[in-house]
């Protein structure tokens, strides 16, 4: 990863869980434990999408949650990136043909990074966040270009 020249701040992440079995959610928490310690890079989970740069979504997204997920995405300030963690959000996974699902997530909101796995390892989640960071760097540059 090169030097960040535009996105010069800690990366705040909001985690939305939609119909997840909690496997991916537990791996996200594992990424924050002292063993992986994502916070040493400034990566932090926040309690509101209005404070977040990255939206981390887990689960296969049931019908009732789709509009809520869309609203959460819309409430995030620009620039923003979306990471889908796990097979369920990526493709529907085990539940791909369920009558009550509206996923995969990229059919509801735009997704930037996919982390397949059931569940994915914490290293993979941290790697995805770094990829989202690079995307944000690009978006921030575009935003600053618009301002000038």
């Amino acid at each position, binding site marked *: 990863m090169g030097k960040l020249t535009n996105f010069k701040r800690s990366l705040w992440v909001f985690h*939305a869980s939609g119909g997840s079995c909690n496997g991916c959610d537990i791996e996200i928490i594992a990424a924050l434990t002292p063993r992986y310690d994502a916070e040493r890079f400034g990566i932090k989970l926040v309690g*509101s*999408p*209005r404070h977040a740069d990255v939206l981390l979504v887990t689960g296969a997204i049931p019908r009732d*949650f789709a*509009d*809520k*997920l869309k*609203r*959460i995405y*819309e*409430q*995030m*300030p*620009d*620039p923003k990136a979306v990471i889908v963690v796990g097979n369920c959000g990526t493709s529907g996974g085990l539940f791909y043909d369920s009558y009550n699902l509206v996923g995969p997530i990229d059919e509801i909101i735009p997704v930037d990074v996919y982390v397949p796995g059931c569940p994915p390892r914490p290293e993979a989640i941290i790697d995805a966040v770094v990829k989202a960071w690079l995307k944000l760097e690009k978006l921030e540059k575009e*935003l600053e270009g618009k*301002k000038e």
Partner: protein
Amino acid sequence: MISQLITGAGYWSPLLWLAFLILFALIGYLIYSRGNPSYKKDTEQVKPYLSGNAEPAKEKIQVKASDIYWGFIEALKGYYKVLQAIHTGDLRDYILWYLGVGTIILFLLVGGA
């Protein structure tokens, strides 16, 4: 001459008050100016986060005056059910009640005479 007003509870200095007002306004402006300028007005970005739920109308989330005596109405709901059914809002009904009850009272008072 602007002087200090000394009371038993402390003192009041208009110049000091003005100095603090300017200082705090400046601090407020500094915080405001460091905010995210790319915020889009009149979108979901400026609405409160309610776990992804839509923000209800202000009227719907207000505490109404009737909420204060909700327990009273709940405890006496049998009585209120009858009373509210009688309250039709039609003045002719009220006059009818007035005349009906008035007749009964009149009959009780003078009927036996």
